[in-house]
């Protein structure tokens, strides 16, 4: 089961970027592009949360700023 999470997450990432690329270079409709990106977002959350969220945070980021 554990091996599935990274696969689901990576499929989610693929759906996030591949449809927009096809929309740009090909003829994928914008509505379909949005729907696939939404599906990609959901799959990423489902797959990445158990995969990445509970990894030991090894690096001290207490003073890292996000600009």
């Amino acid at each position, binding site marked *: 089961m554990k091996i599935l999470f990274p696969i689901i997450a990576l499929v989610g990432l693929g759906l996030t970027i591949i449809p927009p*690329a096809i929309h740009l270079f090909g003829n994928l409709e914008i509505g379909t592009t949005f729907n696939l990106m939404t599906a990609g977002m959901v799959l990423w959350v489902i797959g990445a949360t158990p995969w990445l969220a509970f990894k030991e945070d090894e690096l001290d980021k207490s003073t890292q700023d996000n600009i």
Partner: protein
Amino acid sequence: MSEQEHAANEEFERTPVPKSALKGPGKFWGMYAGEHAAGTEFMIGPLFLLAGVALKDIFLGLLIGNLLAVLSWRYICAPIAVRGRMTLYYQLEKIAGGKLVKFYNLANGILFCFLAGAMITVSATAVGIPFKIEMPTIETVYPNSAAFVVIVLLVGAVIAVVAAKGYETVARFANVASPWMVLVFLACGFVALKQIGAANWEGLNGIWNNTVNYSQALGAKPFEVTSIQGLLDLLKQKPDLIPVALEAFKVPDMEALAQVTSDNFQGAEATSTMNLWSVVLFSWFCNSAMHIGMADLSVFRYARKASSGWAAAGGMFVGHYMAWVAAAFMLAAQIRATGSTDPVPGPMAASVAGMAGIVCVVVAGWTTANPTIYRAGLAFQAMIPGSSRTAMTLLAGSVATIAGVFPAFAWKLLGFVGFYGTVLAPMGAVIFADWYFAKKAGFRQFAAEGLGKSMNLAVALAWLIPVAIASYLIKVEGIPSWYCILPCWIATAILHVIFSKSFYKQAI
């Protein structure tokens, strides 16, 4: 507990990081790439377009500026980090004294609150979309509707409470969100480029120039509007401006004015307020507090070698190059499609990425505001002994939320980020000068520690004099803030050497 386990749990706030806790370069590459695709990127890219930056200057300026930023991390910050292995705050305390570090921390905390406020505004513009809330425009300094205020207050309250009670959880959530957000930015750029509809570089450049010229004509005095419809509404209230408008847009009558778009705009060419060197300096110094300001000593103290400083390239070229260009294209596409020049992140992202774009804006604003409010809370807690971290974090969150109600902080993010660097980066010059010149110039290194002082007067003067002068130049004379950061840094380094030699000669 083994040494490795102890090293993994300890944060080494007041001790050098031991060898057992050091990390390889891969950790830093991932961290920087993820953390610099943030809420601010949605604002900064579009603001370049509105400032009239030429497209070639964006591509070339960001290339040079981001490269200089990476070199600053690699050759200014990382070498001291791997040799001293201390946090910025601990190293500064040894040089400047605890009282001055608290004051620096307070300045940092207050500035963080306003930055977080801008990010709450960013998130609110996305949260408001399903409720069809009227969004503020770029001319909006004060909140434009009660509904927008309510959304900001709710978003700010959630972010503040979570920062106070669940910072770690959101930090972990940010780790999960980062890779996805990076790709959403890229996706936004792809779709925006399609919507712009250029066939080649000349076409893209032409469309870009049209959107710039059109935006500036609308935004200039006496109109200061963000769309042709806004202009028509203004002219109904002020009909004496009609001849001025017809002249500015080079049209014969109001009917023709109503048909003006960025594509058929015939008015004057825009005057840029940011040239190539402005873009270079802005992109070099937008994170100046972290590289030449040495805040990232706290990060690179864990690096095995100074060469890990190159990892900043992941952040700069993913976040500050790709994301800024993508966000700028988003506004250009919006202008072309709707005629609106408002750089409101939520609607812009929705039009190029749908629901994924809306969620990305909310998450990007939130994951930027969360650590910012948390650290502001720590800074306030340090100022008020005995205060609770929760209470101070909520205080910081409250200040940030109130700031978020005023969209001006988001619209003026370019200037604010420059001012932020002007105030904070010079402390890095103190560390730099102390590290490299104390022995050569004959003054005491780590003077506050050696002499038992809570405030090093030499540091205070070296920091505050240039910052005071720069603040006057920025606020009164109108000098763009990003021009002041490097002169301030150099001046502080020189003054630190001069004053330290006068006040704290090296012990014999």
